[in-house]
């Protein structure tokens, strides 16, 4: 059976060159980078090289501004709790948006329970944050604004530079979750002006289980876990050495091959146009200001999980914001925040392209999906078949 993977926002395969680079670090270069002997030192040097590559990938000024973590989730948590811990005497107000990843949103909400105040900036129907609202929300005791660079579900890219402009006037730190943007659009911490930024290796053809938090030099942050002196005590624990090495390589490659996303965007547009030809299908997210690989549509009268299972039977791997797939009782908080009804959000389909997605893959989708939609709609009590 043909298998078409269109869930690159969930995770990506490891690039062959990345794996190649990692391999010696399992059986041969296995030393603990904290050790002072040769076995350790030779590894410590390679970790530093990987740190430099990641730093360069996001145009950080100093490699020491990169702190490796176990993934995007941990980096988000570290940014939020770490800044809150460092600045809690300065203020206890944090601003985020309604469409953040749960790694940000739930972390912020847990601080709220501990006595912090939280303001969530709303979004418009395209998923763009309300900058005017943000401007009015900043207070004297605001210590952090955390707004994602682009949304993982609907692909809308946020105006982070504008966020930074608003924040800088009041001397407030800005963190952005760039997990979905790095490797897909330029991510440049100087250009963006953010103080903290999250990235994750497995979204850029690197290994799962490693991510990084960029912390601009001079930014006040405290570690949130305890142990050895690794990552300058901000993130203790024996380093995931092969993971970090792979991350360095993946960061370098994804920046070097950023050109490929142009073709991705062309295929994305073809897929969007094709899907919109189906009756009662609507695009979610901004039409142009969107990740080059992201397609997200709502297909009325049918439910996401049933759609995914049907696609899966035809070899197409996709994702949905349906409640039935989320384990929670409500469909995607992102789609609801954008004003979709429960039912419409329920019937959402996300197809995310990768660097190896072909025209053939897209054509296959455009052949299969209308057929499946038709079949499921015939079963639906909401729509006369």
């Amino acid at each position, binding site marked *: 059976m043909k298998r078409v993977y269109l869930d690159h926002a969930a995770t990506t395969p490891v690039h062959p060159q990345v794996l190649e680079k990692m391999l010696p670090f399992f059986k041969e270069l296995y030393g603990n980078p904290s050790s002072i002997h040769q076995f350790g030192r030779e590894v410590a040097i390679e970790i530093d090289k990987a740190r430099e590559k990641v730093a360069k990938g996001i145009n950080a000024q100093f490699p020491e501004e990169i702190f490796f973590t176990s993934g995007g989730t941990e980096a988000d948590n570290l940014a939020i709790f770490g800044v809150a811990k460092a600045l809690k005497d300065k203020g206890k107000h944090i601003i985020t948006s309604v469409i953040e990843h749960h790694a940000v949103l739930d972390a912020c909400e847990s601080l709220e329970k501990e006595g912090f105040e939280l303001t969530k900036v709303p979004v418009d129907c395209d998923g763009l944050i309300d900058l005017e609202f943000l401007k009015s929300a900043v207070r004297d005791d605001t210590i952090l604004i955390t707004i994602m660079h682009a949304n993982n579900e609907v692909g809308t890219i946020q105006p982070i530079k504008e966020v930074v402009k608003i924040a800088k006037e009041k001397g407030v730190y800005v963190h952005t979750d760039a997990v979905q943007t790095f490797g897909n659009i330029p991510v440049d911490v100087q250009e963006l002006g953010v103080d903290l930024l999250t990235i994750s290796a497995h979204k850029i053809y690197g290994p799962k289980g490693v991510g990084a938090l960029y912390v601009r030099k001079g930014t006040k942050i405290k570690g949130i876990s305890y142990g050895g002196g690794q990552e300058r005590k901000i993130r203790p624990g024996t380093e995931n050495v092969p993971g970090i090495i792979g991350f360095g390589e993946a960061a370098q490659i994804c920046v070097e091959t950023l050109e490929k996303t142009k073709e991705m965007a062309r295929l994305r547009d073809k897929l969007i146009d094709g899907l919109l030809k189906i009756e009662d299908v609507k695009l979610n997210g901004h039409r142009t200001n969107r990740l080059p690989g992201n397609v997200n549509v709502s297909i009325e009268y049918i*439910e996401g999980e*049933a759609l995914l299972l049907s696609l899966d039977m035809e070899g197409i791997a996709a994702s949905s914001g*349906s409640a*039935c797939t989320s*384990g929670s009782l409500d469909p995607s908080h992102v789609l609801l925040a954008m004003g979709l009804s429960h039912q419409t959000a329920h019937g959402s389909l996300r197809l995310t392209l990768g660097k190896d997605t072909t025209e053939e893959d897209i054509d296959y989708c455009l052949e299969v999906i209308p057929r499946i939609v038709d079949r499921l709609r015939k079963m*639906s*009590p909401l729509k006369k078949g």
Partner: protein
Amino acid sequence: MYTEKVMDHFRNPRNVGEIENADGVGEVGNAKCGDIMKIYLKVENGIIQDIKFQTFGCGAAIATSSAVTEMAKGKTLDEALKLTNKMVAEELGGLPPAKMHCSNLAADALKRAIEDYKKKHNL
């Protein structure tokens, strides 16, 4: 993960559709996830002669709908009323814990359809 039986019912759902001028119709919504199921009955001499369903819901919802219609067909109304959500889930070889609530739709919709029939016929 779904059992092979669930996937079979999902792939080839039995008794999909609508019965025009049905003798009884039952509709339930799943408060938990917003899914909806509708069951149509054709009854003769107290026996379910024909049964059809329409479902807006997940894979488990579709499979349990399909299964319940298969189980009910040919049964007397009273026999059919004894079908429980648990029996439907068992018929399918079980459902993942997170999906047990989906099976509630099926037996409940059937029950409503039978009640609807009884009410219309003053039984």
